[in-house]
């Protein structure tokens, strides 16, 4: 039956020979194999090797930095480094306890300024309709501010706080850092609130909740891990910034807490500025302290980053 049908169709031979049984007849398989002798596949392999090598090469600086921090910074690390004040030139001991306190204080104050502003406007942005002009322009301003040079934040804080109050202070440093933290907090919080499933919001509204109740009882509790991710990233960025502190918080060789008073309107030490100041000094002790301070700073920044990332991952699962 089938052979009859086949016979009726012209062009298909009744007795199929090797040519029709083997659809790949006449194809030279060695031409299709990956081979270094063929320009097309050779180029492909060459590019793969180049790209892999470049990616690994790009990671060398990371490991070099971390290794040197542990090797050179770890040697100098001791209890004294955390509890003592920075040494004068040619002095042989000393530490950077006041700089750690200063960094934490300046970052904390910057967070106190930027968190309320960032979070409340993020709530507005997340609830705004897509055609809201204010929301879209603030969102765009936030994106542009993300790339705002940190030194210009320092220049701004200098003009607003230092010139107005007549002196360098921890507050001026905090204002500068808060400008750098604001866009991160604003944009990640908006994303976090938007990622809460729409049906949770609708359920709350269906129960008769006002917008405010929906935000505080449904949206924010669900979005908290991601918001905290943004906050931790902002802290990590703020703690590492040097340029805006150079001429706002300046530096100090004394404790922030002096005779029972917290001196927020005085020049204040920070780890980042200490590293910058000591790295350029011709004294071995100071350079070693700069490495140790860099190790402490990087560990602080990495811990903040890791907490932030683990919070973000927990939310995904």
């Amino acid at each position: 039956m089938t052979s009859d049908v086949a016979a009726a169709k012209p062009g298909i031979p009744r007795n199929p020979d090797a040519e029709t049984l083997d659809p790949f007849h006449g194809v030279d398989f060695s031409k299709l194999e990956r081979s270094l002798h063929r320009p097309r596949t050779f180029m492909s392999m060459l590019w793969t090797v180049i790209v892999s090598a470049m990616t690994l090469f790009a990671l060398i600086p990371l490991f070099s930095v971390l290794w040197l921090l542990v090797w050179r910074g770890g040697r100098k690390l001791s209890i004294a480094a955390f509890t003592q004040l920075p040494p004068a030139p040619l002095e042989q001991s000393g530490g950077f306890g006041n700089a750690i306190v200063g960094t934490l204080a300046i970052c904390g104050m910057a967070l106190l300024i930027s968190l309320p502003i960032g979070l409340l406007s993020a709530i507005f942005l997340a609830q705004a309709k897509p055609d809201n002009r204010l929301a879209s322009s603030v969102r765009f301003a936030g994106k542009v501010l993300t790339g705002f040079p940190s030194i210009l934040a320092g220049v701004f804080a200098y003009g607003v706080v230092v010139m107005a109050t007549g002196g360098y202070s921890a507050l001026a440093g905090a204002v500068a850092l808060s400008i750098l933290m604001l866009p991160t907090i604003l944009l990640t919080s908006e994303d976090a609130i938007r990622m809460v499933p729409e049906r949770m919001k609708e359920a709350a509204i269906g129960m008769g909740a006002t917008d405010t109740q929906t935000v505080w009882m449904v949206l924010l509790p669900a979005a908290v891990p991601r918001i905290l991710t943004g906050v931790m990233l902002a802290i990590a960025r703020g703690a590492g910034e040097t340029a805006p502190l150079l001429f706002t918080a300046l530096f100090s060789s004394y404790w922030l807490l002096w005779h029972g008073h917290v001196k927020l309107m005085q020049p204040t030490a920070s780890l980042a500025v200490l590293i910058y100041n000591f790295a350029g000094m011709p004294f071995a002790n100071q350079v070693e302290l700069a490495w140790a301070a860099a190790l402490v700073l990087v560990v602080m920044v990495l811990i903040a980053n890791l907490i932030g990332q683990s919070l973000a991952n927990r939310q995904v699962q």
Partner: protein
Amino acid sequence: MPTETQISKPPSRTQAITDTAFRALCQGFTWLVAVIAVIIVLKIVLAALPAVRQYGLGFLSGQVWDPNKKLYSILPEIWGTLYSSVLALIFGTAFGVAAALFLAEGFTADAVFALLKIVNLQFHPFWGKLPVQVENLLSNLIELLAAIPSVVYGLWGLFVIIPLVRPACHWLHADLGWIPLFGTDLSGPGMLPAVIVLSIMILPTITAIGRGALLAVPTRLRMAAYGLGATRWEAIFAVTLPTASRGIFGGIVLAFGRALGETMALAMLVGNANVISVSLFSPANTLAALLANAFPEASPKDVGVLMYAATVLLVITLLVNVAGAYIVQFTASELEGEKV
């Protein structure tokens, strides 16, 4: 039996007032962010106005910076800012895009399975997720490059990069000194160490945004290229990269903005010399490094001049950042509908 009012009821008067107040508060703070953004720009520009009136456009074209004679101009700094950023962008783009391709185009899976094949474990189901895990690990490591504070990079550059490149620079200057790029010798800080560190700092931006753009390319486009007989790299060069090019370009522009405004690494490594030179080994200066060095010691009269320099930096970075943010936003919305 609960009545309807017990399950859901209209908001009470206090709740309604709280709601209105809170909404107004949120809107108020949003306005505040907008106002802050405007004030930042205005404050710097207005503080610069007296200096702009006094020095005019000659400030941008002269080459002298002498506080003692009250002579100020910033052409060397503008040149240094642009030159270092462009050079860093060349290195950063090459390595950043390579890493983005490696992380987005499945090369990690190849590498992982090639390694497993050596110990003959490639078919064990336990390793099924390994490529994805390695890919995430690598991209996190590259993002860590961005987390390290720039002052630490400066320290690293001073004590690692400069001693490392100095012998090579001596050799290049001695043997190939007739090429303008190698026209001077490296005597400590200079353009090349600064550019190397700067390109490491902008690489994560390019890789992260580039990887996102490559992953957003619809799979069917790649499959179509493979179906036509393209090798993997012919598909990448002819289909994937062109489709993702605008997103990658946006990332490069944003990285350029970062490079222009980067301060500490440059202040520590570039040499702070008022020189215009094409040579890679010559010391130079940038706008941000000038501000970082001159501001702490500035007398009130000099502050106006520095504000003028800050305004120039502000205008340059603002233009670049607005362009970058606009390109990235535009590309994201364009590809959104095409995801498979």
